[in-house]
């Protein structure tokens, strides 16, 4: 735009110059016998315009320079002194939840900002559900403006809101300058709580803990809750005999109690780069963290010890098994940080775990098993050698990555990929099955229930019991 302004000014200048040239051109034409005075009778008079045209252009030129000086002063002096504060109503939320963001901009200087376009940069991982993250406004000297919007966390992770992008434009669209103010705020988005909610709802509806086989949680043992009376066998310890019942029934009866034993479980999630494939916001890793969050929730409910480990080529995050609400939140926050990168190194991860966890425990390994097969087997061997009891949940990659086909050609392609994938998975499963370790393939639809099943099974059999 400034170009257009200057264009007019220089147009005036060169017009003035050409008027002088015109005088010589006219005299030349007349000398050559061409008389243009029938067309332009006052052509020679307009030469006297030249200095006045220069005045015309001069006034515009100086006005332009003055505007530019004012603008550059605004950019140099006012913009860096703007005070920007961002308030986030809740900086730790679950995936799918809302939070409100308010940005306040205060101009403490003596100069007005004529035309400002403010944009609060929001990463793609959030949806703006109400309001707008940008505004076009003028900020007077000493004035304050405020914009607000409501965000919905669409993807798990640790996300930064900001920086604030300020574009200052001259009122006449002549000049523009863009500055990025490094005002950043962190929002930690935990994996979706919806699965947990679903579980709670199902539990309420079914009147038990979980539907079907998952209701059988209590087992016999030396707890305090009464289970049943049964006949005495010779192998039973004498202290278990209920003398009153024996006297009443005329035969020796034994009192049985529910077991009070808890298990120790580690959620081991592979965060190698292949786990990041799938649909945006619905990658294998996203599903894995959701499943992990659900297991953590269940373990917390049942007083089990639970820990988490995120690994790829190195161990990115590790939380030693513990229990309680605070620990659960800590685990969720770790799950939120999972980012797909590097190549899976299961043996390394297991060795790391051995250093911190000397006792037996149950491992739920969620991995797509797309790294070296021998390394996976090696990792399993090391785990078993140290009394870790792993179960591997494998998100089946084609189901996560290839959309349901609409044409028959794509259908064939998908089938072919699926067959090849299953062949490889079967080979790996067979290798691992030799060590008595279950490999459970999972699709996007059932990954949650598969993980749940693995956990319930471990709980029933007291795998990794303390």
């Amino acid at each position, binding site marked *: *735009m400034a170009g257009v302004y200057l264009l007019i000014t220089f147009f005036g200048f060169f017009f003035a110059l050409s008027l002088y040239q015109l005088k010589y051109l006219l005299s030349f034409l007349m000398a050559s016998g061409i008389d243009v005075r029938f067309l332009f009778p*006052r052509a020679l008079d307009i030469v006297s315009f030249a200095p006045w045209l*220069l*005045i015309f252009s001069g006034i*515009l030129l*100086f006005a332009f320079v003055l505007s530019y000086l004012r603008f550059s002063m605004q950019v140099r002096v006012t913009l860096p002194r703007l005070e920007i504060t961002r308030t986030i109503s809740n900086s730790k939320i679950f995936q799918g939840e809302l939070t409100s963001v308010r940005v306040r901009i205060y101009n403490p200087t003596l100069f007005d900002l004529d035309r400002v376009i403010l944009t609060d940069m929001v990463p793609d991982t959030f949806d703006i559900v109400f309001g707008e993250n940008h505004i076009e406004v003028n900020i007077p000297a000493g004035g304050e403006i405020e*914009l607000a919007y409501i965000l919905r966390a669409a993807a798990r992770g640790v996300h930064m809101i900001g920086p604030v992008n300020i574009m200052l434009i001259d009122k006449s669209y002549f000049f523009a300058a863009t500055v990025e103010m490094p005002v950043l705020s962190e929002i930690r988005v935990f994996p979706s709580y919806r699965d947990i909610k679903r579980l709670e709802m199902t539990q309420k509806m079914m009147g038990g803990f979980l539907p079907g086989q998952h209701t059988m949680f209590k087992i016999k043992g030396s707890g305090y809750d009464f289970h049943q009376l049964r006949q005495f066998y010779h192998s039973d310890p004498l202290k278990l005999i209920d003398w009153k019942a024996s006297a009443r029934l005329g035969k020796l009866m034994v009192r049985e109690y529910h077991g009070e034993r808890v298990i120790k479980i580690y959620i081991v999630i592979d965060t190698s780069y292949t786990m990041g494939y799938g649909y945006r916001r619905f990658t294998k890793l996203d599903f894995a963290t959701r499943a992990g969050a659900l297991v953590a929730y269940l373990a917390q409910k049942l007083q089990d010890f639970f820990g988490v480990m995120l690994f790829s080529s190195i161990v990115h995050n590790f939380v030693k098994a513990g229990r309680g609400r605070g620990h659960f939140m800590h685990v969720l926050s770790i799950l939120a940080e999972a980012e797909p990168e590097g190549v899976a190194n299961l043996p390394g991860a297991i060795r790391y775990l051995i250093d911190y966890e000397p006792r037996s425990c149950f491992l739920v390994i969620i991995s797509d098993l797309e790294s070296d097969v021998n390394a996976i087997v090696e990792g399993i061997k090391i785990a078993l050698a140290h009394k870790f009891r792993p179960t591997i949940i494998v998100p089946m990659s084609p189901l996560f990555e290839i959309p349901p086909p609409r044409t028959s050609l794509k259908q064939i392609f998908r089938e072919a990929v699926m067959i090849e994938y299953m062949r490889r998975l079967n080979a790996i499963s067979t290798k691992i099955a030799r060590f008595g370790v279950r490999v459970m393939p999972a699709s996007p639809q059932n990954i949650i229930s598969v993980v749940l099943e693995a956990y319930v099974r471990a709980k029933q059999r007291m795998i990794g019991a303390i």
Partner: protein
Amino acid sequence: MRVYLSLLKRRKRMLLIKYMLFKIFLITALAAYYLYINGIINSIVWLKGLAVLSFIKLGFIAVVFSVVYSLTLIAAFSSNVYDYNAIYLASMTIINSFFRIDVAALDNLLAGTFILSINELLLMLLGFMLWLSVLFNISFIAKGRVSHFMWSLALILLALVGLEAMGYANIAVSEWPPTTIGGFLSNSMVILAILTFIVIEVCGNLAYASTIIDGYTKKIDRLGKGLHEILLGKVSSENTIREREEEIRSASKLRFGPLATLMLRGYGGVYALEETSEEVLSKVVGLLRSEGEQNAEIIEAVLGLRSIPRFTTTMLSIVMGLLIKLPLSILLTLLAFALVGILGRLYPELVEVRTPAFALIVFSLIVAIFYILGGIIARKKFG
């Protein structure tokens, strides 16, 4: 909650009144500008400019006529009529019934007896340029782009100088150098420059202000509708099951087959994979309510009511621009010319000092010095 909606309506009405006022100011200022130009030039130029349009129209009709004539020719020949004169007249009647034109002019054009002098053609061209500048200015009023005014200004300048040379304008310029300030300011070109400056400053600002208002009213409309939906429920009827299914599918990036969707919905009994917009909106209501006392503040901030542009500052900056910038620009221009005059007197033997090119160099020099000085002062004073 209805309070916010009525507040929004009130704000919007207030903004719209301002918008209309600004546009009226804009039109008035530009009309004054054209009034001055009209005073300089002979009013016949405007009509000649319009004649270009009718000339173009005539050319277009001539093309249509040739098509009609050929068709009539075919029709006449196929019905064994070979009278060319009758066919020509019939085609002319058809064309006349279509366009209601000056048949004689078309006839002249077709017969090649159309007389147009070069002088007239040139006048038409210059007049047309003036009309073109009007169109540019209308666009400037409507869209608020100062660049359109600039282009119109270039056309006006070119047309004015051309018209002056042809003797159809009467631009008052006194002999150079002027002896008094009054003599300097009374010249047409200086007045035109000042008017141009005022139009840029005033109309540019007003155009900016009206653009901002326009953006704001649109924002209020957009968000007001959202607020209405959130707080008072959807006005439109509930979505049908099919629409709802579609909404879930489109909201979810992962597309499931019908069985998978059913399974997912069945799981837990209530929840779908993705929330529908209604569910999200109900959550928004929940969030707004949970904000408690800040509720009013956040709604005002979201709707932009807490950042409505301050128009008093805009108007103030217009006045400041006129009071400071304009006299300063004129003074600096005079300074540049005085310097040119002094240098011309000091070195009379040099031919260059008497040419406008030299004035241009002095101008550039003063601009550069002024800019550097301004920068230094600003940095020292404000850091």
